[in-house]
């Protein structure tokens, strides 16, 4: 994919003012989103938005490693479950701990686990790395299943408060939290993309050996990417126990999470931070819509067909499709 390997234009307009612009933009989007969601006058709007935003976080987090560095992580559900079970663990110890604290802890654990995964890249590249990440996820799954304290195979119940201060409902609170996480994830992805880290990762993606020869400290960069990616993926899972109130390993390590997390950046476009966002919003919304409008098993059929159609229309992702229109190669 040559569009991927075009070196990024250096972003020299960075610094504080630009950061403020971005924060303002994020806040504006947040205000608009929550005004619209509030208009529906229904829990449902928040619960549906939560699901879509969760995928924005997951897709963005995955793309930091998968899109920028070209290391395809098949174990995304493992990181997600790490966040989920991090919260379950903390809930069992301190039931009154605020969810944002649990998110922070999850990010830390995810980063550590990501660092561990990063050392895999010392030996494994390409598809071998991918299967290595899958193996990590399976091992983690087995550990959780056999870990009585967090519920083991039987699962664990989480009793959440009836409502949250400052919010119309607990669902609204969770949704707002997930929005903040999405903003953080996108900020991280965007910062990485425009920094020395992003350029180094792009060099690794295009040709790791050549990058090493020209002095790129590839291991350090990869470790940074796997840790960041792992932290964001785990973060996405941390509020989930409070969303669902009953967690079992099969739900936390679900195939849907594992594959959607990869499929969404692929469909949106993997070269920039915006691709995963577009893919997650589009596919996440369509999946949600199909679930609550088609009242039979055919809804999963529609979800499947949508994936087939989208990938067929835009094999480079939607952002690839858009940029291709503009610049004819």
């Amino acid at each position, binding site marked *: *994919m040559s569009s991927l390997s075009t070196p990024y234009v250096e972003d020299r307009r960075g610094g504080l003012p630009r950061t403020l612009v971005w924060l303002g933009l994020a806040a504006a989007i947040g205000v608009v989103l929550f005004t619209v969601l509030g208009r529906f006058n229904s829990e449902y709007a928040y619960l549906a938005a939560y699901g879509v935003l969760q995928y924005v976080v997951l897709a963005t987090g995955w793309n930091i490693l*998968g899109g920028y560095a070209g290391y*395809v992580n098949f174990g995304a559900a493992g990181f997600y479950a790490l966040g989920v079970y991090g919260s379950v663990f903390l809930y069992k110890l301190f039931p009154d701990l605020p969810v944002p604290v649990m998110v922070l802890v999850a990010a830390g654990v995810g980063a550590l686990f990501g660092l561990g995964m990063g050392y*895999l890249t010392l*030996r*494994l*590249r390409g*598809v*071998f790395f991918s*299967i*290595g990440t*899958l*193996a*990590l996820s*399976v*091992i983690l*799954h*087995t*550990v959780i*299943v*056999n870990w009585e304290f967090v519920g083991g195979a039987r699962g664990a119940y989480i009793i959440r408060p009836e409502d949250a201060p400052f919010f119309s409902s607990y669902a609204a609170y969770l949704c707002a939290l997930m929005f903040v996480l999405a903003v953080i994830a996108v900020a991280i992805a965007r910062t990485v993309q425009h920094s020395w880290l992003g350029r180094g990762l792009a060099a690794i993606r295009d040709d790791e050996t050549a990058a090493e020869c020209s002095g790129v400290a590839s291991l350090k960069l990869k470790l940074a990417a796997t840790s960041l990616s792992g932290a964001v993926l785990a973060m996405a899972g941390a509020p989930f126990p409070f969303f669902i109130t009953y967690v079992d390993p099969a739900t936390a390590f679900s*195939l849907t999470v594992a*594959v959607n997390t*990869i*499929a969404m950046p*692929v*469909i949106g476009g993997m070269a920039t931070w915006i691709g995963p966002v577009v893919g997650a919003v589009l596919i996440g919304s369509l999946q949600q819509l199909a679930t609550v409008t088609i009242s039979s*098993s*055919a809804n*999963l*059929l529609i*979800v*499947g*067909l*949508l*994936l*087939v*159609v*989208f*990938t*067929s229309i835009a*094999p*480079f992702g939607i952002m690839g499709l858009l940029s291709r229109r503009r610049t004819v190669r």
Partner: protein
Amino acid sequence: MSMELFGNALLSGLLLGGFYAAVAVGITIAFGMLDIVNIAHPAFIMLGAFVAYWLNVEYGLDPLLAALVAAPFAYIAGRGLYRYYHGVFERRSEDSLQGLAFFFGLLFVVEVSLLLVFGVDYRFVSAPYIGPSLTFGDYSVPYRMLVPFLAGLGVVALIALYLGRTFTGRAILAVSQDPGALRLVGGNPVKIKEAAFGLSIATAMLAGALLVIIQPIEPSMGREFIGRAFAICVLGGMTSLLGTVVAGAILGVAEAMTTTYVGAAWGPAVSFGLLLITLAVRPSGIFGR
């Protein structure tokens, strides 16, 4: 006594490995040789299982025979699928990851179609070898596991012969190593890969028939095999058929031994841990180049 336990565990592990090889051989062809991330392969295996069930119940056909009947159709359908895949993805992109989302969608499509056609109830087949066991001394082997083992090995051997002895087969191997090289000697890599992918889907029919011999089936069951099948392919060294068989046996024996000496609950951790360690020592798989 403990010798008997060990021997029997080894035996059941090897039998299971034969079945795993049959499940993974299609992935070895599609993913290992052709670089197509067909995560819908287990769904095609379920399709094969339901076709075997249908032919068995409606026409009293033996499940293995049913797989033979279904295989040519699956081969043709596989060719068609590849032609589409090639037109949409391979011609435009070098990145095989683009196909992953496509096949994920296909997984749901196949799964739900099976559900709509066959319903959600558990289905099974009857055959004379489901039930009795072959016993010698302290050891016993259920035919229900022995037949899939032999059939699995048989199919892998046939494919190995085909790849090694025929022109198309050799061309497939050549394509898997260097697509450009084949074009230089005048072959059409697209046609060759089409045949290979057709072959891969055809093996899913057999793996499905073997599955329904072993246990009752239900449409969403295929998802359980995705991880194991890809792991076997990679562990074996991606393109190696012998590697697929050996890796299948390793996973099967590891599971059986864990069950006997540690506890079955740790089976997945042990077999995938083994996979990680093997990859750490030999990063390109057991029989990888």
